[in-house]
């Protein structure tokens, strides 16, 4: 670093601002460079690399928003099919038609496949079940680059042996109603407080991850209340949390700890091979409501089709842990105009 004689003595606030501007510009540019460098790698493995949306904002690969967001926004996002009694027993046999908005991608490495997730490269990448009967000339709106062709469409077909066989002509994405998460605080009485001082999912929450009784937390921005769930000693946990903030907080009992949910998730992810036809492309904990409306956290698992085979496979590994299956493709009414997600919102618990 240069050190001009008497530099400091010549400094005015304007010069100080100039120097701060130089440092800031350099540091911000380095931050940008770090993100751009991470995006050059086609395989995503760190948090920065997986940030499709943030990357699009940087103007680097805006197309991914067009794919990832469009692929499963509310007109096509995976809907929730959960519980032992909501699945058509014949699902997965090839007799039931499934439909959903999906990204279809064909590359030099594989034929047309159904994407559960799209990697943030250009052209995008994905791997998934093969689509039988696909014809790019029969659709509109696809994109192509470097030997890869992709697009988002509403597909209907039968699901068997790990592949989707089209039974109806694909169309553009269709609107599909989606269930929304209820973030309403379950506490009717809250202590007085100024509100706004607690970082959502912030320091308080971060310190709770190691607590075996901790179930999870969420922010209700309507009421401005941070909510926490514990499987035991709720009063003690409430006192401990209230001692750390002046905000009103809600602490309630929940049946399953985060540790148990994550352990079940680990078990599921550790399975080295799955039966043909079971495609799991995501899992994590999520806020849910039990049959009485009480909040609880469950293990959410994204699959292509929530058929009985998939459900039984999941239950064989995770035991009694409450879970929900989110299916990319859901049963549609036969021989009628596609009714996307027709069975998608009938929710029961998998426990």
């Amino acid at each position, binding site marked *: 670093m240069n050190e001009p004689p008497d530099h400091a003595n010549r400094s005015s606030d304007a010069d100080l601002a100039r120097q701060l501007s130089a440092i800031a510009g350099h540091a911000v540019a380095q931050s940008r460079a770090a993100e751009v460098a991470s995006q050059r790698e086609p395989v995503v493995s760190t948090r920065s690399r997986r940030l499709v949306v943030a990357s699009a904002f940087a103007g680097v690969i805006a197309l991914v928003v067009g794919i990832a967001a469009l*692929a499963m*926004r509310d007109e096509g996002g995976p809907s929730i099919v959960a519980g032992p009694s909501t699945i058509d027993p014949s699902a997965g046999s090839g007799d039931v038609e499934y439909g959903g908005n999906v990204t279809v991608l064909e590359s030099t490495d594989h034929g047309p496949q159904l994407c559960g997730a799209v990697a943030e490269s250009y052209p995008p990448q994905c791997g998934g079940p093969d689509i039988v009967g696909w014809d790019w000339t029969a659709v509109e709106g696809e994109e192509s680059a470097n030997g890869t062709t992709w697009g988002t469409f509403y597909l209907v077909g039968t699901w068997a042996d790990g592949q989707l066989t089209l039974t109806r002509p694909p169309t553009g994405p269709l609107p599909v109603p989606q269930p929304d998460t209820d973030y309403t605080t379950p506490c009717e009485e809250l202590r007085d407080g100024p509100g706004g001082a607690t970082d959502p999912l912030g320091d308080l929450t971060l310190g*709770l991850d190691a607590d075996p009784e901790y179930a999870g937390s969420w922010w209700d921005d309507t009421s401005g209340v941070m909510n926490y769930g514990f499987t035991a000693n709720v009063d003690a946990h409430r006192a401990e949390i209230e001692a750390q903030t002046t905000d009103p907080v809600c602490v309630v009992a929940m049946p399953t700890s985060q540790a148990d949910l994550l352990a079940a998730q680990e078990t599921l992810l550790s399975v080295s091979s799955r039966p043909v036809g079971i495609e799991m492309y995501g899992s994590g904990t999520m806020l849910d409501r039990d049959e009485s409306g009480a909040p609880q956290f469950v293990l959410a698992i994204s699959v292509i089709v929530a058929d009985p085979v998939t459900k039984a496979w999941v239950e064989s590994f995770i035991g009694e842990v409450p879970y929900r299956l989110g299916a990319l493709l859901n049963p549609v009414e036969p021989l009628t105009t596609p009714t996307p997600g027709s069975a998608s919102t009938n929710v029961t618990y998998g426990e």
Partner: protein
Amino acid sequence: MRWEGAGARQKSEKSRVAGIRRPDLYRLTVMEHTELGAGDGDRGEAGFAAFGAEVEPRIRRALVALAGPEVASDATADALEYAWRNWARVRAMANPAGYVYRVARSRIPRRRRRFLPSEIAGLDRIPDVEPALAGLLAALPERQRVCVFLVYGCQWHYPEVGEVLGISPSSVRTHCDRALDALRRGLKVEHERTP
């Protein structure tokens, strides 16, 4: 389906360690982006795109001041990811940019909330910058550092900084004044405030 639990965050952190050996975790995180909430429609996507385009540079700069360029890169992306997943709620907030900053900040461990000149490559090649300045900047309290970085380093106005940090413009000015005093003392320069 939304992944609201802290477990999703913890899994993401695990994925950083496990890398490509855990494709399911990667897929989970991609899914988080793609599952916009019910009823958002085009308005939700378009609205979020506009929001992100506006606030991403602002959040990034503030986080660079808070925790350095490398941490800021991840934290910015994480915060926008969170906003995307919760867009139906975030968009209704009075100060969504401030909320996103708070989310990002809350996810940076305290020990990482520092601005270390040693983490900024090529800092010594910037011409005509007082050698001690970056170190003095790093030594400032968090609020002072972020405020002076944004106002004097990035030419923001007080209200703009206040919006992101969730504090009043007058507080921003106070933090800046104190930071400048500290920097002047450190550089042993006299106060020559420009008009």
